[in-house]
């Protein structure tokens, strides 16, 4: 009887720790993933609008649009990392709409890795804005 009891706490703790890591991963890692996704979405919303507002049907307008996107100071990963690999696309007539994609925002996974999760999780975002938006009259 005594022999069987030995080591029980160790086993119980190990099992509980794995479950604990999974729960911590759900709260911590998913929290960061959702924030990163939201930050990326807010960024592409603003960037698409910035790009669309510069369009005038010329190549120079598209250059100004790309510069306006590059100038935006927004960051992700709790406001610490700059967006990289941002893609800015335009309508064929160069004046109707702009589409901004932030494709490679890779959130590093902390806890879920320990229970079989991936090392990084990518949260892309994209937005389209019309060049002549509806303006609030207020």
């Amino acid at each position: 009887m005594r022999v069987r009891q030995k080591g029980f706490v160790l086993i119980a703790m190990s099992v509980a720790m794995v479950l604990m890591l999974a729960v911590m991963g759900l709260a911590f890692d998913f929290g960061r993933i959702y924030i990163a996704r939201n930050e990326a979405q807010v960024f592409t919303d603003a960037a698409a609008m910035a790009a669309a507002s510069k369009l005038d049907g010329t190549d120079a307008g598209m250059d100004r649009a790309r510069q306006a996107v590059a100038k935006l100071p927004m960051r992700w990963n709790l406001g610490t990392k700059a967006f990289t690999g941002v893609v800015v696309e335009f309508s064929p007539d160069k004046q109707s709409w702009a589409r901004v994609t932030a494709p490679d925002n890779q959130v590093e996974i902390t806890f879920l890795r320990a229970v079989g999760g991936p090392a990084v999780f990518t949260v892309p975002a994209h937005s389209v804005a019309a060049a002549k938006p509806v303006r609030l009259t207020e």
Partner: protein
Amino acid sequence: MRRSRQSGHAMIELAVSAAVMVSCVAGTVQFGYTFYIYNELVTAVGNGGRYAAMRTYRASGQSDIDKGKVAIRNMVAFGDSRPAPDASPQVANLKPEQVRVDWVMDESGKPAAVSVSIVDYTVDAAFGIFRFTGKPAVEYPFVGRFAPSESEP
């Protein structure tokens, strides 16, 4: 004799494992809640920034600019530019005063962009307090109507 020694072991084991478990739970609750609040702030600031970008910029006097900023702060805090007196904030305990609005002007004195950020907001997450200043922040290009000679209604 043996039984009492064994139950002492169990007490120590419980104490050690409980210390680990409780700190894990406390950390999970604290970070989970803080991340949730931060996410809500990102949403509120993003929506407020978009509102600011599309809103008519009236500037017949400083009071008009100030009134415009009040409307933007209210939009971030309450989701409404003219909230009812008993309106509840979109994010727990967020006050309009904790929202900062800055206009970026171009060379000709017209608004080019607007930045909206959170200042001095604290999250009380049961086991610890986090303070956000300058984050989250957005900058939107100004795409609204520029009306330098109109006054706010």
